């Protein structure tokens, strides 16, 4: 009996590696610490009532952001481990297998569990406020989306200490990801972690499309929507078209592994190439899904910090919609070398290059907005400015890669690694950082410390170029991606060392950011205006943080920069605004179902991972029960009485003057 348990434990827990042991110990310790702190301060009830069951879009947004920062840490540690391994030739720091696991988890975590939730966090916090709405269209579904993301990400993350991580790359190409080549549970974690959180992403896509189409303040025509909202809209359109493809692809891979089906296997008539087509039909739009909202953020920031209307509003909207459309017709540029033939390659090469046109138009619009503007170099604006050269270089190397014959040379080399990090870090990560700095006061009612912010900014940026510029040359020298070690005589040592130093500099940048947040919380200087940047859109017209109902009275809108317009008018007329009549406000009630349902999904997924039907089946039945319970509950909303709104507003205004 004891032997059996020992045997089981040795398969169940990943052991034998000091790194992993360290991680296990630190996970254990931080869990104990968390439980202790929550119990000591009697915060369990508060946590449950105010956060875990909340359907308030602002709270959900904050939870997304917290999780994504933790994932940035985890993905960043992975990155630094890899860079450490590659710093010197013939390094013995990581074994090949371990290295494979690390680049796989790094890629997945950065894109799906860092960039996506950071993006959803900003959607949640900003969109309803920008369009003058009291909430998203489906608050309950919104909470469900968050928890599906959360539990999916947890399922993926436990693979590190339980059972073993996936190691077939972030897109899990077969046959590597098939049972024949990956018999362990790692791929199952990949499939279910992504599947569960992917359902949440799909639901968010639907939710925000409806929110944007149906919940805008009176007078806000589509062509008067703030640019960030437009970018969210484009991104969500891509989500609803791309994510179902991912769902199917993962489900089929699962059937291959679980029931011995032959979709992508080498035998039985399967076709691995079909997987590669399917996954990139999702994967390519996916990178645009995460970058388009960053474009929206830059548009907001450029216009606010230049004190000018955005240049070329209509062309910006048009460009974004074109990019969303084109992104679905470029997927094959990820495998020019895999024998699709010259015609097919030419089609995809041209469609890829076409994307550069609307993107270029956007860059010029930002530059024209800044031109002759009164520019203020606050941190959000600095990240925005830094983004432009970074993205231009990344874009150009991208066009180089899109030339099919050239790609035969660059394919899967470090040139590619440098290119996509340039657009992902320079575009997505910098963009979301800018957004985070910009909207932070709206979320919490105080600004982040600018001084530390500038330190973070410079270390990140310098680190970035030091890390990735050498990689272009390494790629041209023939170093391929996913190389875990190399010989002295390749001559790649010096450039790799430089690159690693750059990587660590970015790590220092991250530490500055954490320090910045801690420092700003400790020495908080409350922002009582609700409009610390002299903003232009509606979210700045209400106090920070916004009251639960956002707008006591729904605003009327005539222009894209609605709040700016209102401010101009107010300063022109000395008249006091007319007396406000408050009405009762209709709000959704909190619910514990999203948390419970997603936790049950976690257990169902965990059961699938280990092929434990005794766990999966009850968990799935539990999921069904929670769904039915929701369907049968009719008492899901309430009204905030007008008096209470009046009192809240008075209190908020009192703090204002």
């Amino acid at each position, binding site marked *: 009996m004891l032997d059996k348990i020992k045997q089981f434990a040795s398969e169940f827990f990943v052991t034998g590696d000091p790194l992993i042991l360290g991680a296990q110990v630190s996970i254990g310790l931080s869990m104990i610490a968390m439980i202790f702190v929550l119990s000591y301060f009697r915060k369990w009830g508060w946590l449950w009532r105010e956060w875990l069951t909340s359907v308030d879009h602002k709270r959900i947004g904050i939870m997304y952001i917290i999780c994504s920062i933790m994932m940035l840490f985890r993905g960043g540690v992975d990155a630094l481990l890899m860079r450490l391994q590659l710093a010197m030739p013939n390094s013995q720091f990581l074994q090949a297998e371990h290295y494979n696991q690390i680049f796989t988890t790094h890629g997945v975590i950065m894109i799906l569990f860092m960039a996506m939730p950071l993006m959803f966090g900003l959607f949640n916090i900003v969109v309803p406020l920008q369009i003058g709405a009291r909430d998203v269209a489906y608050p309950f579904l919104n909470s469900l989306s968050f928890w599906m993301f959360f539990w999916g990400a947890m399922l993926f993350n436990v693979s590190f200490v339980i059972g073993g991580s996936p190691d077939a790359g972030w897109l899990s190409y077969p046959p590597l990801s098939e049972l024949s080549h990956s018999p362990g549970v790692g791929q199952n974690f990949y499939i279910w972690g992504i599947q569960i959180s992917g359902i949440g992403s799909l639901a968010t896509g639907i939710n925000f499309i409806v929110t944007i189409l149906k919940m805008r303040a009176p007078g806000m025509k589509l062509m008067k929507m703030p640019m960030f909202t437009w970018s969210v809209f484009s991104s969500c359109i891509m989500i609803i078209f791309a994510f179902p493809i991912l769902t199917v692809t993962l489900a089929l891979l699962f059937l291959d592994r679980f029931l*011995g089906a032959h979709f992508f296997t080498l035998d039985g*008539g399967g076709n691995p190439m079909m997987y590669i087509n399917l996954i990139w039909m999702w994967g390519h739009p996916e990178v645009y899904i995460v970058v388009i909202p960053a474009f929206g953020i830059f548009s907001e920031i450029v216009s606010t910090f230049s004190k000018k209307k955005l240049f070329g509003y209509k062309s910006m909207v048009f460009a974004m919609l074109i990019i969303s459309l084109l992104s679905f017709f470029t997927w094959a540029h990820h495998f020019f070398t895999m024998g699709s033939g010259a015609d097919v390659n030419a089609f995809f090469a041209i469609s890829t290059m076409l994307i550069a046109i609307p993107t270029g138009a956007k860059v010029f619009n930002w530059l024209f907005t800044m031109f002759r503007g009164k520019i203020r170099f606050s941190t959000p604006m600095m990240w925005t400015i830094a983004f432009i050269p970074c993205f231009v270089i990344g874009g150009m190397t991208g066009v180089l890669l899109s030339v099919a014959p050239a790609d035969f040379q660059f394919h899967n080399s470090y040139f590619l690694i440098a290119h996509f990090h340039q657009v992902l870090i320079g575009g997505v990560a910098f963009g979301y950082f800018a957004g985070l700095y910009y909207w932070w006061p709206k979320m919490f009612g105080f600004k982040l410390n600018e001084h530390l912010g500038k330190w973070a900014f410079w270390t990140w940026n310098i680190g970035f170029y030091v890390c990735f510029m050498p990689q272009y040359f390494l790629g041209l020298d023939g170093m391929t991606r996913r190389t875990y070690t190399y010989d002295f005589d390749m001559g790649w040592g010096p450039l790799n060392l430089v690159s690693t130093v750059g990587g660590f500099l970015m790590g220092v940048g991250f530490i500055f950011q954490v320090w910045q947040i801690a420092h700003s919380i400790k020495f908080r200087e409350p922002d009582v205006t609700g409009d610390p940047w002299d903003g232009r859109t509606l979210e700045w017209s209400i106090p920070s943080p916004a009251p639960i109902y956002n707008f006591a009275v729904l605003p009327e809108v005539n222009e894209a920069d609605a709040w700016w317009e209102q401010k101009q008018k107010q300063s022109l007329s000395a008249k006091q605004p007319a007396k406000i009549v408050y*009405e009762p406000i209709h709000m959704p009630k909190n619910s514990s179902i999203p948390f419970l349902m997603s936790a049950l999904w976690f257990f169902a997924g965990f059961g699938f991972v280990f092929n434990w039907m005794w766990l999966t089946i009850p968990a799935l039945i539990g999921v069904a029960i929670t769904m039915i319970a929701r369907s*049968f509950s009719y008492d899901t909303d309430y*009204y905030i009485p007008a008096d209470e709104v009046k009192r809240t507003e008075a209190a908020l205004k009192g703090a204002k003057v």
Partner: protein
Amino acid sequence: MAHAATQGGHHAHDHEHDHESLKTFGFWIFLITDCILFGSLFATYMVLHQNTNGGPTPEELFKMPGIIAETFILLTSSFTSGLAVLGMHKGNMKQLIGWLAVTVLLGASFVGLELMEFINMVNHEGATISTSAFLSAFYALVGTHGLHVSVGLIWMVGLMLQLKRRGITAVTKRKVAVISLYWHFLDVVWIFVFTVVYLMGVM
């Protein structure tokens, strides 16, 4: 939304209306995503349907009489779900629940027949999901449709219970409208399955 606060009741009612139409709209978008989901499965089937790997072929497997019966049953159920909606609009609870019950029965017999078909294929022809890529794609596509129908059945039964309890309100009206939308959608998907998988398979 410029109502006076004094008419609390009227205001609340109006709001509810808004919310219900919002949910129907969202469901339409959900259906778009479901279209893409089925689209991907159809594409997979098209790519793999000739890879029979020495196993049984579509001509050998598909028994058209059964399939045609399934098709008629499902089409009829779509019609009866429409009658249920008509009943609802007339405010006729009996008609509404009655036709929903008929729809459930027809849907259940569709699923039953489909299951029998699958069991036959496995038992008599040894045609399992792991026999060939063609069969993997077949079971995935047709099975996903069957799963959708089954979920619809549970959902419909739940809805009938709610209707009994709460009567015809703005909320239950929307729920009936949504499920009938779903049901028609599954019908349309089935027509594609019937054509692409079965007809083209035996032709």
